[in-house]
């Protein structure tokens, strides 16, 4: 049986833990609102671009002369898994879910005899993947020096990816991130980003003949890297919102658990205190009776 002093110490330590988790929960709630607004604001651009890409893609046929980003390199030997994680923990299973999805995919691809490389964004997934695939990490993109990964980061990542692609370092790239459904639900998602999957041709009324300057193919070639950037940017935003959502839920649970623990410990503390008092009383009474 723990002594009274020990119990008191434990109650106090759980109380301070609860304070931390509660604070983190409130911070996450505030940040979540901001992240959601940012994701909302990015939507018009992404929607427009996808629309334009769709109508362009429906006008040209994919051939060997098409841009490599659309047509592919002609083989699918080397797969690059782009794994987007966060830099901070305290978000429940958020990061491990993304890493798990990536590992499942990696095992699947390796079973098919493909080569798998990793491109890691954020700090949290590094340790796990480095332990399992020590020689297969192509690059680790650092986002610790920026507060919220934004379009500039997406741009830099996309540029690096395109450069690697053009240097023939990989044939297919998959992006792993967490899609934000609600504060309670985040879905780890696997999306192919290179070669760019032909966007679905939107039902655009073809009665108006659109003029292109320069021609369709050149516009498409110019837009492909931008489309990639937009997708990466969208993924980063979704990830940011998901992280805060996961963090909020995890911290809510932690706060509740700490509350339960405090209650249990307090009851135990009171019981032992009373037991001690009773023992003392019994001793006094027994002493008095003996006189």
């Amino acid at each position, binding site marked *: 049986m723990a002594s009274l002093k020990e119990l008191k110490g434990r109650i106090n330590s759980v109380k301070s833990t609860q304070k931390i988790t509660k604070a983190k929960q409130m911070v996450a709630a505030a940040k979540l609102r901001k992240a959601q607004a*940012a994701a909302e*604001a*990015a939507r*018009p*651009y*992404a929607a*427009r*671009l996808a629309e*334009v890409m769709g109508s362009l893609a429906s006008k040209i046929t994919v051939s060997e002369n098409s841009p490599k980003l659309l047509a592919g390199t002609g083989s699918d030997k080397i797969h690059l898994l782009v794994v987007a994680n966060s830099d901070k923990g305290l978000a429940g299973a958020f990061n491990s879910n993304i890493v798990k999805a990536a590992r499942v995919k990696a095992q699947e691809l390796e079973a098919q005899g493909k080569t798998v490389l990793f491109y890691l964004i954020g700090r949290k997934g590094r340790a796990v993947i480095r332990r399992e695939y020590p020689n297969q990490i192509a690059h680790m993109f650092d986002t610790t020096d920026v507060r919220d990964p*934004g*379009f500039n980061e*997406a*741009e830099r990542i996309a540029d690096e990816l395109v450069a690697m692609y053009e240097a023939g370092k990989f044939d297919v790239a998959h992006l792993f991130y967490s899609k934000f459904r609600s504060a309670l639900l985040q879905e780890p998602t696997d999306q192919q980003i290179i070669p760019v999957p032909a966007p679905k041709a939107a039902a655009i009324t073809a009665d*108006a*003949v*659109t*003029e*292109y*300057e*320069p021609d369709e193919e*050149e*516009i498409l070639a*110019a*837009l492909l890297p*931008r489309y990639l*950037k*937009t997708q990466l*940017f969208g993924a980063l935003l979704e990830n940011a919102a998901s992280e805060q959502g996961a963090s909020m839920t995890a911290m809510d649970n932690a706060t509740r658990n700490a509350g339960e623990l405090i209650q249990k410990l307090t009851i135990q503390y009171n019981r032992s205190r009373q037991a001690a008092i009773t023992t003392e009383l019994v001793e006094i009474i027994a002493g008095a009776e003996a006189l």
Partner: protein
Amino acid sequence: MALHFELVTPAKLVRSEDVHMVVVPGTEGEFGVLAGHAPFMSTIADGALKVYKTENGAPEEIRITGGFAEVGDAGLTVLAEHVEG
């Protein structure tokens, strides 16, 4: 008749307003867009958009990089990666 002009960046919708004319620095030369322009798509060189709110007013310049312009029934939409000011 006014031209509906929208300027969108990945981060937000910068402008959405009715203007008289916009002069766009296309990669193959500048072009002005008035209301009722035929459907048209073009990439944009890095430079300044000139927005004429009224016919005789002074133009407002918006510097953009990484742009793309689309003219449709809904008006002119400029997608730009970065917008200054």
